[in-house]
């Protein structure tokens, strides 16, 4: 909000500090000054007045802050409104408030000469960014900038039956505003109406018909206190924000209407001539009285963490307009609508005294070690393992577009946003995979090989879950399988295995994974994730040039199964004997089945079986598997005879299977 330095100066006899210094003082004690601009002989301060401080949406309010901070006295006011005893207001006009208004005050001014404003009025308005229109309208705006109370002037003779009604608009009512815009009003829009139709959008903008023109002779001056919620909602509904609506939206002091009406009437009669009718029409059913709050000095000290002398505390509050009695009961002026409880008073004391004068003090508290959060621990652990294996961590948007949702077949489970930022962000992601694939799309021209992962929330069927997913480009299923194997083992999980996926017909996975090149990751029989090649359909849709293998894991399940417990297992100090075996089996035989035969035959003598070659001849229907079999015992050296016997037994058992053949060298 813009404030004129010269105008602020006019409230003081004493010279204010220069604009830069004043800005700094205000920033530290009241409101941030976002900029200072030179304008002729004046400086314009752009002050970010806090939304709960509508008393400072005015030059007088800011001057009161300055007075409290610097201890400068405000000048006494020296104006006196003269009324015409012969013109009694109640003989001419009447008001009726139906809803949406706490107070409605009206003054009438007769025989006004509408014309241009004097330069000093125009200058002050312009310095605050308001365009001068004519002397009456300008004075209404001037008083708003001075005291913070929006005012509206009507051409009294254009008001049907000279009756003002405050009510919500009826369905179908319309208004043409001062700036020639037509608005369709509705039940939520508060209006000022005469006996026939709306003549102004209450608290937001006046109507054209009753606006002040050069022919206007009699002015009805409205100084009202409208319901902030009604004005705020109306302003949003009509998409119309004005200086007045901004002030009303945040709530004003109802006791201000009368002072402002008098001040404006005084200025109008002085500048535009005219006679002010005697009296004020004032709808004010529930007078707002000052609040009383008990102040405890100990609480001030305890909350701020500093001892401020009592006299200093009292002085700060008095300079801000508070009254305090002997028992430290503080009377809050009604313009301070933000001060409701003791803590609010403590804030006043703290900020005016200066937060910079509060010395840093470390809290004294019990030495309770912070609780460990296992989910965060495992999240960090997984990141460490994956980064050490060459993965780069990404954070993708939690949102997906409708197109993404359709491409991945997530229509059933995805949660839709009522008010999305744009069509790109219309749904919450039910999986991390789409984001990762889009990352490949973005990076594939710059990077040949991409290895990325993400840990983050996914959202499905009303619920959120933490997921872990990653991918590598290229046909590298077994590499990724090895990565998952390493990751799970490092997490202390040993009872996991990879299983063929048996898809159910309605599963959406079908569109993501190439099912015959995918595996379920299972721990103790429970599926915790999926690993496999991304389907051709998806790759085509996202124009991915390379193949992608990805994994998608339920992180919460994983973190629950992970353990830091780990036991050292003594290794054998006796020599190992390695024998190689090569087996020819039909192509559809699983490697696991072959290994099981070896294991079952001589498991007790074997430390490890290591597949080191698979060879498939194109034309043949068999494949050749080559293993290193490592014989070793823990308690003694294995005898050559034992190895020989075991090996023979293995060969025998393998060859018992139809079409299996051990290659003899």
């Amino acid at each position, binding site marked *: 909000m813009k404030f004129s330095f010269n105008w602020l100066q006019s409230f003081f006899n004493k010279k204010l500090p220069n604009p830069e210094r004043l800005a700094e003082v205000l920033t530290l004690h009241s409101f941030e000054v976002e900029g200072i601009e030179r304008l002729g002989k004046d400086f314009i301060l752009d002050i970010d007045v806090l939304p709960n401080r509508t008393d400072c949406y005015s030059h007088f309010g800011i001057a009161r802050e300055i007075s409290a901070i610097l201890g400068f006295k405000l000048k006494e006011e020296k104006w006196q409104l003269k009324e015409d005893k012969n013109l009694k207001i109640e003989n001419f006009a009447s008001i009726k408030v139906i809803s949406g208004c706490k107070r409605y005050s009206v003054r009438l001014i007769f025989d006004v000469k509408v014309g241009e404003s004097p330069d000093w009025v125009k200058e002050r308005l312009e310095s605050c960014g308001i365009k001068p229109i004519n002397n009456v309208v300008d004075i209404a705006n001037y008083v708003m900038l001075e005291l913070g109370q929006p005012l509206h002037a009507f051409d009294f003779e254009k008001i049907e039956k000279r009756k003002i009604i405050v009510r919500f608009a009826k369905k179908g009512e319309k208004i043409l505003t001062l700036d020639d815009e037509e608005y369709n009003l509705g039940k939520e829009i508060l209006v000022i109406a005469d006996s026939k139709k709306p003549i102004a959008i209450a608290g937001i903008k006046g109507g054209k018909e009753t606006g002040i023109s050069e022919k206007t002779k009699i002015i009805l001056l409205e100084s009202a206190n409208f319901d902030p919620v009604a004005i705020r909602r109306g302003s949003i509904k009509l998409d119309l924000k004005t200086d007045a609506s901004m002030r009303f939206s945040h709530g004003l002091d109802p006791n201000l209407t009368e002072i402002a009406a008098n001040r404006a009437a005084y200025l109008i009669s002085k500048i535009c001539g005219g006679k002010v009718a005697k009296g004020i029409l004032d709808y004010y059913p529930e007078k707002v009285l000052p609040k009383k709050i008990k102040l405890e000095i100990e609480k001030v000290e305890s909350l701020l963490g500093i001892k401020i002398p009592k006299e200093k505390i009292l002085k700060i509050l008095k300079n801000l307009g508070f009254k305090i009695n002997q028992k430290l009961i503080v009377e809050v002026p009604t313009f301070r609508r933000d001060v409701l409880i003791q803590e609010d008073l*403590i804030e006043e004391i703290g900020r005016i005294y200066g*937060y910079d004068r509060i010395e840093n003090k470390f809290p004294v508290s019990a030495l309770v070690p912070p609780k460990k959060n296992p989910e965060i621990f495992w999240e960090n652990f997984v990141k460490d393992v994956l980064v050490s294996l060459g993965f780069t961590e990404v954070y993708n948007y939690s949102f997906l577009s409708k197109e993404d949702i359709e491409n991945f077949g997530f229509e059933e489970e995805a949660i*839709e946003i*009522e008010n999305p930022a744009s069509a790109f962000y219309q749904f919450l992601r039910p999986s991390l995979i789409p984001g990762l694939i889009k990352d490949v799309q973005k990076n594939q021209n710059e990077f040949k090989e991409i290895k990325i992962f993400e840990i983050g929330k996914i959202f499905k069927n009303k619920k959120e879950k933490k997921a872990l997913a990653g991918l590598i480009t290229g046909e590298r299923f077994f590499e990724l399988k090895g990565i998952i194997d390493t990751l799970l083992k490092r997490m202390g999980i040993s009872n996991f295995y990879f299983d063929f996926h048996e898809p159910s017909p309605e599963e959406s996975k079908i569109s993501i994974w190439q099912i015959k090149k995918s595996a379920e990751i299972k721990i103790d029989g429970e599926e915790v994730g999926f690993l496999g090649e991304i389907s051709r359909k998806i790759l085509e849709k996202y124009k991915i040039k390379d193949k992608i293998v990805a994994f998608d894991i339920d992180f919460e399940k994983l973190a629950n199964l992970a353990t830091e417990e780990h036991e050292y297992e003594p290794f054998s100090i006796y020599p190992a004997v390695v024998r190689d075996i090569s087996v020819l089996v039909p192509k559809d035989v699983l490697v696991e089945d072959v290994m099981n035969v070896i294991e079952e035959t001589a498991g007790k003598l074997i430390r490890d079986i290591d597949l080191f070659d698979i060879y498939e001849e194109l034309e043949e229907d068999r494949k050749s598997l080559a293993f290193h079999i490592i014989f070793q015992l823990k308690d003694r050296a294995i005898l050559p005879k034992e190895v020989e016997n075991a090996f023979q037994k293995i060969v025998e058992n393998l060859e018992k299977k139809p079409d299996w053949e051990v290659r003899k060298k």
Partner: protein
Amino acid sequence: MKKINLGIFEKRVKKKIKKAKNLKELDEIFKEVFGKNGEIKRISKIIPKLPKSKRKVFGEKFGRVKESLMEEFEKRAKELKEKAEREAEEKEWIDITIPPKKVPIGHYHPITIVRRKIEEIFQSMGFEVVEGPEIEDEWHNFDALNIPPDHPARDVLSLGKTFYLKNGGLMRSHTSSVQIRYMEKNLPPLKIIVPGRVFRLDAIDASHEIDFWQLEGLMVGKDISVANFKAIIEEFVKRFFGKEVKIRLRPSYFPFTEPSFEVDISCIFCKGEGCSICKNSGWVESGGAGMVHPQVFKNCKLDPKEWQGFAFGFGMNRLAMLKYKIPDIRLFNSGDLRFLNQF
């Protein structure tokens, strides 16, 4: 018979050894002296022919000379070998200006790096790290934080800034909701930080995101004060940015704190002298904070007469942007490896 002077013999051989330029020459000299038909052999042959009286003395002297010459050979051989190695090494070289071979390594997202640093600092001061749901209800995101319906702040936050879900619920617009969730379940004294994603409806540009990270903090006890807050938060920024960073508090307004402040940190780029980052003010806005509003305690069924404390919220993307001079907030969610591979 020629008379043999062992002293002269020794001197002559030693001179030859010294003159040997390489191992090959030395080897030849060695053969001349110690070889099958070498001088030593020849001299030893004459010993039996000497008179008995001289034989012993000569023999002993001959023994010493042999030993001394042998040592000399070994010494010289070592020298020449070292010299040869040195010369060989001098000839071998590599062009160390060849660009380094790329070692494939992974990278942490900068938010993770910042988050870990934050967690480490606060955990060392006894704060627990807590997380909360990203889908929230109106109570935890607004009402309990003293932002009831019809409150101006509620309209500002909810109508224009919060994502609502079609089947009910909303995306949390701040991590402050976790303050409430934690206080509903735990009794003070308490010290927590909450790093997490938050969501705001906005037009995305270089400094506005719809999906970003916040750091919430909360400390509640019998007498936790503004002075305590200043000490904790200054310690945090000093450890996070470096020793010389200072903080200042400016009055602010949040419905859930009273008093409320903005926390500014002295500009880390110009050290407070004024630059484009701090808009020449010397200070950079980094977060909001304040003393927990009594109504918030009441909403969590805690007695505000018994407890007081501070709460704060910092933008983690902003902390990362300041720390690493990242000019555009959109980079964080971009998935762009040219950006991520730098961390």
